[in-house]
């Protein structure tokens, strides 16, 4: 079953309709939703897959917080250059119209709200948009935040890309984060293998579902969701 929130028309739907999506399919869904010409930061891990699904003529410009705009695809072979990596320290390439800048300028660009979209992974997202994605808070862990807290507030829209449930079946879209927070009320949309949700001050709203009914969501997430379109 596929549903969309009211007033939202998708002319392309590169997604499975009757089962949960793979992370690759989900990346395609997110790529579809990124406006043409947008300036976008893709967090390390799964969100980097989104780049592979952006149409060649999308005009989307990728930012990497280690100091570059208009980053190109992963570098291979002769294009490998230790001086040119993304934020995950993976070698990448530059596209025509690229620009380099130092770290203070790069994070000023994010903090100043100039990026249109940032897509991040997460441990948990709360219904009101709180984000937990930097540490599980385990006492034996070594805290490491990197750019997570800067990214969390670093775009006009902050999207999360994650599985909806942990391996042990716990929901990751929660009434209130139990993991240490990365940012407060910063996420506007959550893309998961079972569906897409808008989150924020007005609570959760279902945008699309993949193989799960609204009632099942209500049951498995332990809450009654506010939604449109069913």
């Amino acid at each position, binding site marked *: 079953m596929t549903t969309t929130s009211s007033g939202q028309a998708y002319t392309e739907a590169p997604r499975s309709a009757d089962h949960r999506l793979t992370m690759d399919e989900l990346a395609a869904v997110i790529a579809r939703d990124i*406006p*043409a*010409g*947008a*300036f976008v930061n893709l967090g390390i891990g799964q969100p980097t897959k989104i780049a592979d699904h952006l149409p060649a003529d999308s*005009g989307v*410009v990728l*930012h990497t917080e280690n100091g570059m*705009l*208009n980053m190109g695809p992963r570098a291979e072979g002769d294009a490998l250059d230790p001086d040119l990596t993304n934020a995950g320290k993976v070698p990448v390439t*530059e*596209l*025509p*119209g*690229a*620009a*380099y*800048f130092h770290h203070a300028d790069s994070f*000023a*660009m*994010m*903090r*100043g*709200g*100039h*990026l*249109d979209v940032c897509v991040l992974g997460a441990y948990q997202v709360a219904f009101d948009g709180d984000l937990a994605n930097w540490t599980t808070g385990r006492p034996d862990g070594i805290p490491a935040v990197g750019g997570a807290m800067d990214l969390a*507030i670093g775009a006009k829209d902050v999207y999360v890309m994650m599985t909806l449930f942990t391996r042990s079946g716990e929901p990751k879209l929660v009434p209130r984060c139990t993991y240490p927070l990365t940012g407060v009320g910063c996420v506007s949309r959550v893309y998961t293998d079972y569906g897409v949700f808008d989150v924020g001050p007005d609570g959760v709203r279902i945008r699309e579902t993949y193989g799960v009914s609204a009632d099942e969501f209500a049951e498995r997430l332990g809450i009654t969701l506010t939604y449109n379109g069913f």
Partner: protein
Amino acid sequence: MSRAETVASADAAVAGIADGSTVLVGGFGLAGMPFDLIDALIRQGAKDLTIVSNNAGNGDVGLAALLAAGRVRKVLCSFPRQADSWVFDGLYRAGEIELEVVPQGNLAERMRAAGAGIGAFYCPTAVGTPLAEGKEEREIDGRKYLLEYPIKGDYALISAHVADTMGNLVYRKTARNFGPVMATAATTTVVQVDEVVEPGMLDPEAVVTPSIYVDRIVQVKARHYTVQGAR
């Protein structure tokens, strides 16, 4: 901000500037002054403007012409009074324009803060002077500072040397001055350039204003200002 648009005329570049807007205007004296955009803004007709710029107009051109046209309610600048600032001087003495004097470095840093998402900052400039009045003072590590707030623009009108069609900019010599800072501090940044080139023609290491900060680009004819000190 999505990708920059290259428009055909300065008039198209300044379309939509509403009455009451705050407009950041580049330039230090005449160097880097976006003459064509200001002339187009005069034709466009927006009034009741707040102008943020280092000076308040020189001679009868550029910013001075905008002031003379009666479109400016208030000027934030560091140095209104110059040998050739007669337009501003007359309006100010007649009580027809408001003035907020801001130390030059604070003007730049407050716009930088707006562009960088900084809420406010403690700055040592002007401590103990008349320009400290009304500002919060704080001692940090034995030195006194004043709390300064961001200056954000609805529009920035700036001048650069070359743009690529994505909006990356390079400047020429000291005409760079406020342009790169203002480009970060405005909701909509409009730039006039001497030349527009294809992406890939500018060295990515030498880009001064990355494309993300630029919304509209217009190529203009060779500048028509003269060297002040050479008169």
